[in-house]
């Protein structure tokens, strides 16, 4: 197959960091090409250059032999390059057709557009009703809107940025069928992901980026996931060692926890009940926006719930705030690092006081012992290999991964009896993620009860003893991880969310 897009020596530097350094590779017509790399490896910058959002400092691109230098996304779209972003840009209050029209240069009259949407969606096995309000769609269906918006422009190259992060395993299968069908018709796909098994299943070629440089190419189907992971991080790393404890007494009991949605776009919690035992790691999966954040708010004590719904070691803490819950040994770490788990402009020492004030005796009679706080922060930095010039540095100056290590480390270092974490390794490089998981397992080995809420199924399957899924604010039944397969997990997560399965005859 001839080359569709050639990248030649693309370089892009930002102050203090070279995002892309002399990156060259080719995407052939009709292939699914994976772009693989850790967070911060330069994947996003690279595709932004291809899509005309960022101008390269150096280097050229050719599209089907002709020079290609899009000055803005609309130029890229005109040349036949389309992109589906990881975060959707859709208006909840408008219907599907209106949203699609908003993304087009010259939208056709509504009736024609609705027909086109129907045609495209049937051709590619992406059933979608043009008159549905976007606010009522599931994450997978919203992604379809974005994909159809791209397909209507008949692209030659479709860029997909982490498309499966919001999908259940069933929905992923549907998406893959669509992508394979597109490929069969000659559309090339640049597929960005760090999920290695997916890439092995789907992609023809893979280009691996590390620290802005192209470090390897491979044929995923002939390479093991572990080998690709090592190319990605540039070294081998230890998989977390399993813990050897049997779950013991119940430390946390949640009994029929219900909570109205915190705002117009939140998810209400509906009758969540579970028990968490000493020495156990419980994993909650689920597509984002199915009540994870709300559950964390209820467990941390930021929102209190009805009496008798949350019990710690036999005591009802439902009406207690975060301070009292921490005093009882019940610690939490929310998903959002900056602004929620940590205050951006405050130093790491100050951020250590944020949750550890009482438990680590950093505060006495109302006065903060800054020396102690500094030593505690220092301790967290050392134990969790947080890369920072010192404890005086503002939280916002740390990279996402390093700050994540700090905010998780801050809770782990307090030796909680119960620890609830949301997305503990989100945006963290593979080695650091492994270290964080190991720390959680070690904590469980010492008798703590751990609840991990995550959208990374691989992570949950690796470290949890039992698994449950959140779906629309409800919790599925909990099952031992050892007995589970992907099919079951997908159904627990809500299956295909009533999305029709693709009927592709390719």
């Amino acid at each position: 197959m001839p080359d569709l897009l050639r990248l030649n020596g693309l370089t892009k530097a930002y102050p203090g960091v070279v995002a892309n350094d002399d990156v060259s590779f080719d995407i052939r017509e009709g292939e699914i090409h994976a772009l693989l790399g850790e967070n911060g490896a330069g994947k996003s910058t690279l595709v932004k250059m291809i899509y005309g959002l960022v101008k390269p400092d150096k280097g050229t691109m050719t599209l089907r032999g002709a020079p290609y230098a899009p000055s803005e996304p609309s130029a890229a779209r005109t040349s036949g390059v389309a992109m589906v972003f990881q975060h959707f840009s859709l208006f909840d209050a408008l219907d599907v057709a209106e949203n699609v029209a908003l993304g087009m240069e010259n939208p056709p009259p509504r009736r024609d557009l609705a027909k086109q949407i129907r045609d495209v969606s049937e051709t590619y096995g992406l059933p979608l009703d043009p008159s549905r309000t976007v606010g009522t769609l599931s994450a997978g269906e919203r992604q379809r809107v974005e994909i159809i918006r791209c397909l209507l422009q008949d692209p030659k190259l479709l860029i997909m940025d982490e498309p499966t992060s919001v999908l259940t395993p069933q929905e992923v299968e549907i998406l893959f069928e669509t992508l394979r069908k597109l490929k069969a018709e000659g559309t090339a796909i640049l597929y960005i992901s760090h999920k290695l098994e997916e890439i092995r299943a789907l992609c023809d070629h893979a280009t691996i980026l590390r620290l802005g440089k192209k470090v390897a190419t491979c044929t995923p189907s002939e390479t093991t996931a572990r080998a690709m992971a090592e190319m990605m991080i540039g070294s081998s790393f230890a998989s977390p060692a399993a813990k050897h404890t049997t779950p013991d007494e119940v430390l946390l009991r949640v009994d029929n926890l219900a909570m109205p949605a915190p705002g117009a776009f939140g998810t209400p919690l509906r009758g969540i009940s579970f028990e968490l035992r000493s020495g156990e790691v419980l994993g909650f999966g689920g597509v984002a926006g199915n009540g994870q954040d709300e559950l964390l708010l209820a467990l941390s004590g930021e929102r209190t719930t009805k009496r008798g719904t949350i019990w710690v070691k036999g005591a009802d803490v439902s009406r207690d705030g975060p301070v009292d819950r921490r005093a009882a040994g019940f610690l939490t770490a929310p998903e959002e690092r900056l602004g929620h788990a940590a205050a951006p402009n405050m130093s790491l020492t100050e951020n250590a006081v944020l949750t550890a004030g009482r438990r680590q005796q950093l505060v006495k009679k109302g006065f903060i012992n800054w020396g102690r706080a500094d030593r505690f922060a220092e301790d967290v930095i050392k134990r969790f290999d947080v890369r920072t010039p010192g404890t005086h540095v503002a939280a916002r100056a740390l990279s996402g991964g390093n700050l994540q290590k700090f905010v998780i480390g801050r809770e782990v270092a307090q030796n909680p009896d119960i620890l609830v974490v949301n997305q503990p390794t989100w945006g963290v490089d593979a080695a650091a993620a492994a270290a964080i998981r190991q720390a959680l397992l070690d904590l469980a080995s010492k008798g703590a009860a751990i609840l991990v809420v995550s959208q990374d199924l691989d992570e949950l399957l690796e470290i949890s003893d039992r698994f449950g899924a959140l779906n629309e604010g409800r919790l599925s039944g909990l099952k031992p991880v050892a007995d589970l397969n992907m099919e079951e997990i997908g159904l627990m997560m809500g299956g295909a969310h009533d999305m029709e399965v693709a009927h592709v005859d390719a």
Partner: protein
Amino acid sequence: MIRLEKRPQPSKAWTVATPILAVILTMIFGGIMFGLIGTSPVEAIRTIFWDPLFHPQFAGFSRPQLLVKAGPLILIAIGLSIGFRAGIWNIGAEGQYIMGAICGAGAGLALYPMESALILPLMIVAGALGGWAWAMIPALLKVRFGTNEILVSLMLVYVAENILASVSSGLLRNPEGMGFPGSRNLSQWSSSQNLELIPNTGMHLGVLTAFIAVILAYVLLTRHIQGYNIRLTGEAPRAAKFSGVSPARTILFCLGLAGALAGMAGLFEVTGPAGQVSIDFGSGYGFTAIIVAFLGRLHPVGILLAGLLMALTYIGGELAQLMLGVPGASIQLFQGMLLFFLLGVDVLTNYRVRWGTSEVAR
């Protein structure tokens, strides 16, 4: 091209250097302005910044004025700054200042003409309570109904001004005042007078209280968990909730404290420099203190210096009008320049200026 680049964290050196740079810039541009209107720039600057303190003839009168004017500004600004740190915007200190003066004066006058050393302390407490209660109105409305404290506290200033006009010609009017509006002179009643503690320094009880407030605020913000919680609430409200800080309690504390301090400032003023409750008692200290709080970067020590600087430009400005005959508007312009430069150069604390070509569109 000049380009601003965000620093990873605020520069400590520039935090200290920017106010000095701003004063220098003000002197340069203010000097040019005075030159243009035909006054010697050097003389004008000297009259404003130097003469109030060191002029052989006038300093004796103007030097004490410095503390008299700076005292209430600092005391009010300290209270405001603590709320501002938490993102609670109390704009109504002027009203709290007036209500403090009225309540404190009222408590004292109720006992007139009794003689007791306990009357002034009682009046101080009553003044603080008056300011506190006035600030509790926006605080409770915000906690209970989510109203905007900026609007409520500001509107209550005008209510307070009307109450002031009413009581000074009614309830608190001096019965021996031959029908003129205004209360008895509290600075002439030995039980209530708030005199200079050290002669010819302007140092009265209110100034002392302001200095103590600076120290306590500094300790509160740097050492105490309550101050930490306040800063955390301002920096990252969600992180504060996660930490366990109650937003309602923070609102009540911050507004209450600001109100109490403003009320005390009003009481010290009415028993000392002003002497009586009168229609024109409200002198704008409550509003100027907002500027002082920001000039001082919401930092207690900064506020102390900003309060003194602000008082100096007021006194120096008056002196310049008197001695050099410069128009009042030019003094206001000069003060405006000072504010402009102080706030403008603040950008250097958080940004780095880069010269050279900027990068292409992102």
